[in-house]
């Protein structure tokens, strides 16, 4: 176990996993409460198009995927502001469009396959110190966002139309939120993978919601669960030699199952006690 920490790559991977899980968990609360579970998936799949484009033209993958994700966030914001088009429809269309472009780009690149599964499911060996720095910065930004806009985010998630009537700048919050989700998704891709990042953007929030009486409690519970899964997921991945993404997701889902059971038993006990 100790020798695990003597490899630089492993330390980076552990840090990256914890940071990515932490950021995603923070956002998961609002995603779950606002019922926009689809958004993470949209951003991740859209980023795939960007990644493939970067691979095709030998561009910087990180840079291009962040740009794609931000463009994705901005498009969703503007298209869904028109009430006629449902946000989920827009995401569904962009998601498959960008995924399709991604596949076309990779087909155009002769003899290419190696890194693809790394992007789909995450890869411990892909993470470097730069990624850790970026993920730290992202985590810091999200934490500040949640602290600074605590009440606005709460009302936005609770009932954004009503919040707007009471003067909460919901458009601003919505805009920042969409961009931030997109950024978290693309910066987490190396460690968790495109296919599985959705799990981190949903499950911690669901776990938190099972127990929380207030939103801040929910944020606390979800981020603890997320960080826990991020840490143990990566260690398990290392020992049984599988990609980190699936391992983190399975750990997280196990936490959910246990929480669900505890909550179920608690509810039963409550009914027994109080009739």
């Amino acid at each position, binding site marked *: 176990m100790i020798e695990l920490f003597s490899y630089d790559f492993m330390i980076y991977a552990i840090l990256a996993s914890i940071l990515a899980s932490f950021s995603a968990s923070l956002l998961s609360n609002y995603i779950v*409460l606002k019922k926009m579970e689809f958004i993470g998936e949209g951003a991740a799949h859209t980023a795939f198009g960007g990644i493939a484009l970067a691979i095709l033209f030998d561009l910087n993958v990180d840079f291009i995927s962040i740009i794609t994700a931000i463009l994705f966030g901005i498009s969703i914001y503007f298209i869904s502001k028109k009430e006629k088009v449902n946000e989920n429809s827009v995401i569904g269309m962009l998601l498959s469009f960008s995924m399709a472009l991604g596949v076309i780009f990779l087909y155009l690149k002769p003899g290419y396959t190696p890194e693809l599964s790394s992007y789909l499911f995450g890869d411990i060996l892909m993470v470097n110190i730069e990624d850790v720095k970026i993920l730290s910065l992202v985590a810091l930004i999200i934490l500040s966002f949640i602290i600074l806009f605590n*009440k606005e985010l709460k009302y936005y998630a609770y009932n954004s139309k009503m*919040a707007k009537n009471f003067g909460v*700048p919901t458009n601003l919050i919505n805009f920042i939120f969409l961009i931030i989700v997109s950024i978290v998704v693309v910066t987490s891709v190396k460690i968790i993978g495109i296919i599985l990042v959705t799990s981190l953007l949903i499950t911690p929030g669901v776990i938190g919601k099972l127990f*929380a009486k*207030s939103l801040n409690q929910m944020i606390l519970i979800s981020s603890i669960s997320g960080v826990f899964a991020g840490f143990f997921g990566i260690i398990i991945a290392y020992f049984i030699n599988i990609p980190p993404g699936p391992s983190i997701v399975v750990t997280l889902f196990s936490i959910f199952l246990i929480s669900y059971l505890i909550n179920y038993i608690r509810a039963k006990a409550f009914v027994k006690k109080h009739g």
Partner: protein
Amino acid sequence: MREKMISVKDLNYKVEDNDILKFINFDIYKNDFVGIIGPNGAGKSTLIKILIGEIENYSGEIEINGKIGYVPQKDEFDKSFPIRAFEVVLMGMYKDVGLFKKYKKKHYNKVKSTMKMLGIDYLYNRNVGKLSGGEYQRLSLARALVSDPDILILDEPEAGVDSKAQIKIYNILEELSKKGMTIILVSHDISMVVKKANTVMCLNKTLHCHKNAVDMTAEDLKKIYSEELELLVHINKPLKVVSKND
């Protein structure tokens, strides 16, 4: 002359090519207690959403003189949302606080006293999803009142509320009206509106009547509820003899 609180001139509102509201004109003065009645789909909620600024793409001129408190027709939210009653009421004072600042002691005190006035202080810490329809409706009223509005607008506050709670809400409105608040009440409870309000507007796309509650006749109701007239005439009979003060 009394202070003019709301003035609406030549208000028209269309969605696609459908007229939702047509050529609406009225003034509301300080301390008016206005009841708005009309069948389903008459445009009552739409008119109110225009007054509170939720709908902006109308044509016409609207002047509002004072702070509005708003109790929506229905407030859709997730019953399992982890938010407590006082937090929802605090939302009513968001504008006083704004970005990057926290609610202060005086805001919390205001929430407490308002909830107490409405008889729901025992709900203060309760999760909102656990409230009954009537309790939530009063919470909604508390949220509208904490900002000390000059004008209170309520969209069917009696919907889904039992008659005891309804009477409670109407009594509170009467109290507030006595204290000088301007009240606009949308309701399907015509007899209650005619009893409590001092002016009534009959709306069905356009204003079919706008007069003192005591002058309301079956004819006025006939204009907006042609098909259900039978029933309404029946309701209307005792109305004419009801005066504002009993």
